[in-house]
């Protein structure tokens, strides 16, 4: 008998566990969703979003909203593991630790994408514009991948600190700025109706950042969870 479960089996088990737990409780997604809506409403009043100024700001608003609600999700997803002692259980399992990292990352990624998939149509309805384009979908996929790649790593650190809930955004935001810049620029371009070929610089940058951040997080994750 094999002593270790295969990498992909372990990975899909972690993803599946997170998705099923969320499907039954719906605690995290509902919180992220309501929070995202609230942020949009606050922006509406704070910035007086009339049609003229709105077009220039939409990309920024979308990413700020996703970033903030993403922090809620990341915090929650690790807090659940920690509080109920599930993290120790996961770590005791005879599987590759990086499978756990990728499993958690993919689950977090799915939650962010679901949030975005509901947020964008709602935004379109509220402001009577059509945001949808395949380019935007690609940017959201890439941008949130980079975000959860670092976010999952840092949240598994911040959750073990005394000041855990306040610590994650402080650790995550300064590090994630390059991804956000590229994502906001590319989103703004697609919303302004620019062609894909004129935005390739930002897309390539996003891909590059995703690769760099994911591989570094993958390499150091072992050091974060070892006891």
């Amino acid at each position, binding site marked *: 008998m094999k002593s270790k479960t295969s990498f992909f089996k372990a990975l899909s088990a972690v993803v599946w566990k997170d998705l099923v737990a969320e499907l039954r409780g719906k605690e995290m997604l509902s919180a992220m969703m309501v929070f995202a809506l609230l942020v949009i409403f606050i922006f509406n009043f704070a910035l007086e979003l009339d049609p003229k100024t709105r077009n220039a700001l939409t990309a920024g608003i979308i990413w700020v909203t996703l970033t903030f609600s993403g922090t809620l999700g990341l915090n929650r997803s690790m807090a659940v593991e920690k509080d109920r002692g599930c993290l120790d259980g996961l770590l005791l399992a005879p599987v590759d630790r990086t499978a756990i990292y990728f499993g958690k990352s993919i689950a977090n990624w799915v939650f962010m994408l679901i949030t975005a998939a509901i947020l964008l149509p709602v935004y379109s309805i509220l402001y009577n514009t059509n945001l949808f384009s395949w380019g935007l979908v690609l940017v959201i996929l890439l941008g949130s991948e980079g975000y959860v790649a*670092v976010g999952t*790593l*840092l949240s598994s*650190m*911040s959750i*073990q*600190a*005394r*000041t*855990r809930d306040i*610590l994650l955004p*402080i*650790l995550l935001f*300064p*590090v*994630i*700025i*390059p991804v956000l*810049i*590229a994502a906001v620029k590319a989103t703004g371009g697609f919303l302004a109706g620019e062609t894909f070929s004129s935005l390739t*610089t930002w897309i390539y*940058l996003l891909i590059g*950042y995703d690769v*760099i951040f994911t591989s*570094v*997080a993958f390499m*150091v994750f072992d*050091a*974060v969870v*070892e006891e």
Partner: protein
Amino acid sequence: MKDKPKLLTVLDGVTLVTFLAATAMVFFYAPTERVMGAVQKVFYFHVAAGWVGMVSFFVAAVVGVIYLIKKSPNMDLIGIAAVEIGIIFTLINIVTGAIWARPIWNAWWTWDPRLTTATIMELVYIAYLMLRQGIDDPERRARFGAVYAIVGFLSVPLTFFSIRIFRTIHPVVIGGSDPSAVGAFDMTPKMFQTLMFSIVVFSILFIDLIWHRVRLGKFQNYLEELKIKLQV
């Protein structure tokens, strides 16, 4: 362990003397720049402080990698020492820059890539200190510190690169200048010598400070051990 090493005392002296010499050079040896006047003199320590800031964070990332491989507590002492020193020197860099920018750019602050990146870098390492503060177990604190020093140091050049794609107005004094930069100037040989000397002096100061800080860290650990012994 408790006695101060002779070499460190010598280094203290060297640092003090060369630092005074560098200050004298800035004020009396380097000529006053024709257009900008006396405020340009801030440039020598501005660049030198920025240099030390970058070097310290680089050192912190390198010892972070070594720590994760070898798990030697000394590496962690060097890491925290480097980050603390880096934060102070980056702050000196930002503040002296603002002092220079006020008369030259007519603003304390602009959203230029270098200024923005330096400040984000400062925030990354303040976050590093906050992370360490929140963790009681020294071994875990060292491990997380090492991880964050690596991730943070990696992110800084990416931030710079992203913002750099926009136009910059920060002068590039060494190695070619963008004509749109405001406040650029050509260095005379005397200015160049002063700058290089300042950078060398700040590097000596960095070594001196990091040595002191590592010793302090060792004393701290020793004190903790003594406290535990007393309790038992």
